[in-house]
């Protein structure tokens, strides 16, 4: 006779146990708490941000000045989705306005902030820089409708920095300060500036990759006078003359290997260290890179900011491809306290510190005067930047997918063209197939 303990669990018993376990898990899932988050009375606000978005000093400052504790959670899209779906989201979340705002707004997980802006004395509507329109979405188009967030600072990301010492070495004249070069001229300069030896690139002629490949191509298509997306943003078309022009230019840039790309990676992962080391003649980074450049006086002396290139015959536009800032989830628990932190972060000490640091253009017009202008090189940079601001534009992005998704698809099919195995036209066709499939799925999901 078997003892009870030795009896194998029956199927019924196993199912009962599993159900019990599942119930326990579900209950514990419901009770998931953000680490150290929301206390009673709205004294603690949870911010999901990246390292460097807010400093420990600023966290202490918030407690001291506002009486509100700030708990930081490291930004992570998977964690964010888990927190949103478990009904316990952070109170404020980092986002890239150009590509995230419409995505989250369309899925109805972001809070409309208009009522808060309407009664704020810190963030007045007439003081908001137009870049904050990246955080508006009317259900169809980005740049219109209610506000879902705000940018902490911004750059016009199609502008580029160049190193005059490398230009001098190559005997090339500098790009003009206020008149843009064409994309073809930029590429020609890059070809002349690149220095190679035995298969190694000693100096990259230039880097031009945009914030993401999808924002780059959307912006360049707009520079050529077209639009990458259909009017309702449910489709992309890479075969229009304007989109094809942009695509052909980018593939040519990769194919000639004048700068980092998928087929010639830069181990630093981004342009900053390579440019700082004098190993990159031009870098497609907007004003914000000046914050890094200013830390090295020698580099600052030889660095110049230039306007965004144009396509011959196309309009002169200069878009912000980022506009990183914060948004508030609809299910945030401490909305009032979160808004107070929001106001402080975007309109008070942290905003003033960011403006004076030169790491981006402030998103309140009233803070513009704080942008660094003590040194000659800073004045020169500011002159170019102020002129470029007249060409600022919003290039709307589709709400039906994340930029990462389009990048993933692009990077699956584009290397064949970069390596010359397929033509640009064939690539455009393949991109249409995979991207539109993804957009179609996204549209069905949003409803």
């Amino acid at each position, binding site marked *: 006779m078997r003892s009870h303990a030795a009896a194998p669990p029956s199927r019924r018993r196993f199912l009962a146990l599993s159900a019990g*376990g599942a119930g326990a898990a579900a209950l514990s899932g419901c009770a998931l708490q953000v680490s150290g988050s929301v206390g009673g009375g709205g004294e603690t606000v949870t911010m999901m941000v990246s390292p460097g978005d807010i400093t420990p000093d600023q966290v202490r400052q918030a407690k001291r000045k506002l009486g509100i504790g700030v708990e930081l959670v490291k930004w992570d899209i998977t964690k964010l989705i888990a927190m949103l779906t478990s009904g316990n989201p952070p109170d404020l979340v980092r986002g890239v306005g150009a590509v995230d705002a419409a995505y989250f707004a369309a899925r109805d997980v972001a809070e409309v902030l208009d009522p808060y802006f309407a009664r704020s004395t810190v963030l007045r509507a007439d003081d908001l820089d137009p870049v904050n329109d990246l955080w508006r979405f009317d259900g169809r188009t980005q740049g219109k409708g209610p506000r879902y967030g705000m940018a902490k600072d911004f750059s016009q990301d199609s502008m580029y920095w160049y190193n005059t010492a490398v230009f001098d070495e190559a005997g090339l004249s500098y790009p003009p300060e206020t008149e843009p070069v064409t994309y073809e001229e930029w590429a020609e300069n890059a070809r002349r500036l690149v220095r190679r030896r035995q*298969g190694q690139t000693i100096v990259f002629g230039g880097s031009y990759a945009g914030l993401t490949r999808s924002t780059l191509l959307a912006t360049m298509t707009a520079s050529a006078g077209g639009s990458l997306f259909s009017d309702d943003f449910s489709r992309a078309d890479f075969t229009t003359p304007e989109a094809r022009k942009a695509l052909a230019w980018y593939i040519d840039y990769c194919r000639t290997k004048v700068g980092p790309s*998928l087929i010639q*990676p830069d*181990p630093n992962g981004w342009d900053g260290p390579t440019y700082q080391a004098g190993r990159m003649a031009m870098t497609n980074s907007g004003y914000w890179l000046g914050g890094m450049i200013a830390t090295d006086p020698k580099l600052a002396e030889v660095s110049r900011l230039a306007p965004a290139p144009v396509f011959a015959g196309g309009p002169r536009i200069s878009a912000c491809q980022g506009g990183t800032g914060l948004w508030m989830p609809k299910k945030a628990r401490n909305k009032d306290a979160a808004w107070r932190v929001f106001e402080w972060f975007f309109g008070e000490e942290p905003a003033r510190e960011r403006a004076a640091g030169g790491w981006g253009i402030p998103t309140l017009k009233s803070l513009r005067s704080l942008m660094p202008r003590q040194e000659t090189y800073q004045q020169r940079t500011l002159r170019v930047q102020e002129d470029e601001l007249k060409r600022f534009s919003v290039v709307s992005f589709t709400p039906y997918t994340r930029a990462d998704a389009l990048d*993933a698809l692009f990077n*699956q099919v584009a290397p064949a063209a970069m390596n010359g195995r397929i033509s640009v036209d064939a690539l455009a066709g393949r991109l249409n197939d995979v991207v539109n499939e993804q957009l179609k799925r996204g549209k069905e*999901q949003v409803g």
Partner: protein
Amino acid sequence: MTVDQITGPAPAEAPPTRHGRGRGRGTSMVARRQRAFYLFTSPWIAGFLLLTVIPMGYALWLSFTTFDGLSPHWRYIGLGNYRELIHDPVTWDALGRTGLFAVTSVPLSIAAGLGLAVLLNRPVKARGLFRTLIYLPAVVPPVGAGLAFKALFDQNSGATNGVLTFLGFDAVGWLADPYARYVLLMTVLWAAGNIMIISLAGLQDVPRELHEAARLDGASAWRTFRSVTVPLLSPVLLFQTVTGMIASVQTIMPLLLAPLGDTTGITTVPQSNYLYMMHVFAQYFALGRYGYASALLWVLFVIILAVTGLLFRFTSGAVFYHVDPEAKK
């Protein structure tokens, strides 16, 4: 080859135990032991249910939906994701690449680990130091290893190309197609110390008298290795093959070799390293297709089960088990 049982000398007869004296007390002892067994294994069983069975069940449910984490209008689509998977050329490409990677990397790393184990099983000076040095890479965190390989194999500033250009050769774009796959293979072989340690333990378990007998019979070193050592190591080799195969199809290391480093990393993996798990990762975290990615994972689970079953089936005649007769009781 047949399955052999290598048994030790017959154990001395066990002394009578208390539970052998009376039926009631014996049953009580058995019951107590069984309770202790379940008590001590319950943390693992609970963990297995909560962290494995339930997530797998949830993933199975997701695989029948269009769930993307956030969107309000996801729906049940039955086998739609599985049907799409069958017709997705990217999935098949990634699966093929993964299979190739597994059949290349697993035998190579086992051979490398076994070779090192044989060498370091000999009475050489500073043997312990060598064993430690070779094992060290296995304990280096994968992120560190990835970054080190990225720096080492960079086309323009890496040491590998530094040596090549010093010798008059042209630099090679190791981290891009088509060479990235070789760098990946090197990262696997670099960590072969793990296999070496297990093989070494197996080697030390081989009875010395069998080697001596073979030597007395005039067998060469190679013949002894082939006919005595390898058969006795066969359970270890099977273990390494099975776990190595499972690990290789779940490889995520190429992510760390991603050249451009964007928000997800996965989107910039060179195509030659775009393995099945990269595809799964991209579907989950870049494309937000939780349902489809879950279907991919379930298919991988079934493939792993099938391959493992086949491995056991086809190696059953070639594996020698050292059976403890007591364990059969």
